[in-house]
């Protein structure tokens, strides 16, 4: 058995890459930009989609009924948690409960709070009827067996407070008994309490708070509806709008459309950025490649004179190009992932989209596809040098000085 060589193909690649730092750093940077922007686009879209899927599935409701004039506000509450207060007659809830195909109906009252110690901005308080609610209990991450009692609240994952501690809204002290799992949607910034406590808080607010809160008696903000198995949510939604005038229904596909609309502008910007970066980077890489081809013609001719075949030279050029693409790809993906994770909340708030960090599998797929794009572009960029070098006459090049 022959002994392994003391100098390997891989060693030559490493030396060629590390000892031409300036040119290779520029190339790596170009690949990093391409991979980073592509990964960011994929990551944000996937994070928004996953957030929406998670949020909607956890909501457990097929239909959300809100006052006709507040359909947009209702969507905003669910998607981004922007605080809002609106109401319609409680009688509507009774009618909805009796509509054929409605399995469960749960009323909610939305109250935009004032500034509180927990939070940098007002939060959305949602009053529920624990006897009829079918959503909150399934979302509990901490203290899942808890029942919400007098002056108890369950808080969204973005609200900074521990179970067992107190929070004050409108001068009323509430006791945190549970924390919801993160969804990336508006519910992360919401606080859930009972109807009775919301009414008491409103009644006391005139004396205890800087601003009086009014919750009209017999009014609710929204009704969550779960339809009977086998029943079409669309048909039930249509029936609700017919039987309860002045209401608007929001369905999960409507939320998806709303998010897609919000995402659309963002993704268009991201894809445009990716395209622009790619369009700028490919000529840059092409220019670098042409420079490399001319710079290395003599070096490659020497290798040929020393016994390197054309196939060896092609492998060497491609391996170097792919190495730069892979290094650049990893740097771009890693940097993008780091920035996107660190500024996750800022991005979600700025872009007004639901967002949670995509699953590891999704991130692997996104990272893999961004890396693949880099490698493909790296391969394309190396075609010209490979063509030029394999077509050149080595001995004439060597003699050329």
């Amino acid at each position, binding site marked *: 058995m*022959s*002994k392994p*060589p*003391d*100098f*390997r*193909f891989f*060693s*030559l690649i490493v*030396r*060629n890459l*590390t*000892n*031409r730092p300036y040119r290779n750093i520029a190339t790596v940077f170009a690949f990093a930009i391409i991979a980073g922007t592509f990964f960011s686009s994929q990551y944000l879209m996937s994070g928004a989609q996953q957030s929406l899927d998670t949020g909607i599935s956890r909501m457990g409701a097929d239909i959300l009924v809100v006052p006709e004039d507040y359909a947009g506000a209702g969507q905003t509450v669910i998607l981004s948690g922007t605080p809002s207060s609106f109401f319609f007659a409680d009688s509507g809830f009774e009618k909805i409960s009796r509509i054929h195909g409605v399995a469960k109906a749960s009323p909610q009252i939305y109250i935009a709070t004032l500034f509180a110690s927990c939070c940098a901005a007002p939060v959305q308080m949602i009053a529920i009827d624990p006897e009829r609610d079918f959503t909150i209990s399934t979302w509990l991450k901490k203290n899942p067996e808890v029942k919400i009692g007098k002056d108890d609240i369950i808080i969204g994952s973005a609200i900074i407070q521990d179970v067992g501690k107190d929070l004050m809204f409108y001068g009323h002290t509430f006791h945190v008994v549970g924390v919801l799992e993160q969804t990336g949607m508006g519910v992360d910034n919401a606080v859930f309490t009972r109807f009775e406590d919301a009414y008491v808080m409103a009644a006391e607010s005139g004396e205890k708070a800087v601003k009086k809160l009014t919750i009209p008696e017999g009014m609710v903000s929204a009704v969550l509806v779960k339809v009977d198995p086998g029943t079409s949510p669309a048909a039930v939604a249509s029936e609700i709008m017919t039987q309860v005038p002045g209401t608007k229904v929001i369905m999960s596909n409507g939320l998806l459309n709303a998010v897609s609309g919000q995402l659309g502008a963002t993704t268009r910007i991201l894809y445009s950025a990716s395209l622009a970066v790619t369009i700028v980077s490919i000529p840059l890489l092409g220019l670098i490649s042409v420079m490399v081809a001319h710079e290395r013609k003599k*070096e490659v001719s*020497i*290798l*040929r*004179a*020393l*016994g*390197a*075949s*054309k*196939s*060896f030279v092609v492998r060497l050029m491609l391996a170097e190009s792919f190495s730069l693409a892979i290094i650049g790809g990893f740097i771009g993906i890693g940097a993008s992932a780091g920035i996107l994770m660190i500024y996750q909340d800022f991005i979600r708030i700025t872009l007004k989209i639901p967002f949670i960090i995509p699953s590891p599998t999704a991130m692997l797929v996104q990272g893999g596809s961004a890396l693949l794009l880099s490698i493909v572009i790296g391969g394309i960029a190396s075609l010209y040098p490979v063509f030029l070098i394999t077509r050149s*006459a*080595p*001995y004439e090049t*060597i*003699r050329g*000085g």
Partner: protein
Amino acid sequence: MIKVSGVTKTFRTGSSEIQAVDDVHLAVQPGEFILIFGRSGSGKSTLLGMLAGLIRPTNGEIRINGVDIGNLSDDKISELRAKEIGFVFQFSGLLPTVTVLENVLVPTLFCKNSPGSRSRALELLKKVGVSDRADAYPRTLSSGEMKRVAIARALINGPSLLIADEPTGDLDVDTEIEIMELFRQLNCEGTTIVMVTHNPDLIHYGTQTYCMDRGKMVKRPESSSFNKWEPGPDTHLKPKDVP
């Protein structure tokens, strides 16, 4: 060992043709030190390129150890070049991104079952007198040191033939003598060498000397009258002149 029979090389540039090598016959036996003289553009370097399989002849045949290299694929001829031929260029031809020791080891990448190893590379560097520069990069070497490293690199795979294309062309006189003495030593140890040069002062190093003029191989003059010698039509080497 090498048999060149009626080799011609014509380069075409646009509509014009240049006959760089014209009906050359040459035989090189093992252990010889062949020196080929000639002015610039006489075709000597083109002939060397063909001997190394880097330039394909237009006509004629070149056999190395009985193998007609004109019929070999690129992979096969590259393999033969890696194993059987060591190359020293006019300039050093060292790769700038690898160290001196690694430069010497580069040809082992192209040769199956190469005898080349780190210890052999160090031995060769010692033999050519630059072992103390093994870890240096080429840019830090003098011209003479670079040439010595290039010679060590040419020998790493244990070739049967060393081809040198004006290896002392860019050196000062003292360094030129040192390098030529090194070639002589290698030849004395059994290495076959074919070298081209335009410097007639080196004529005494060769065991066989030839001249090229306008693409033709011509009979060489006596060394004493070399500087005044002018080739003519009657000096063209014919097949019968080649052993």
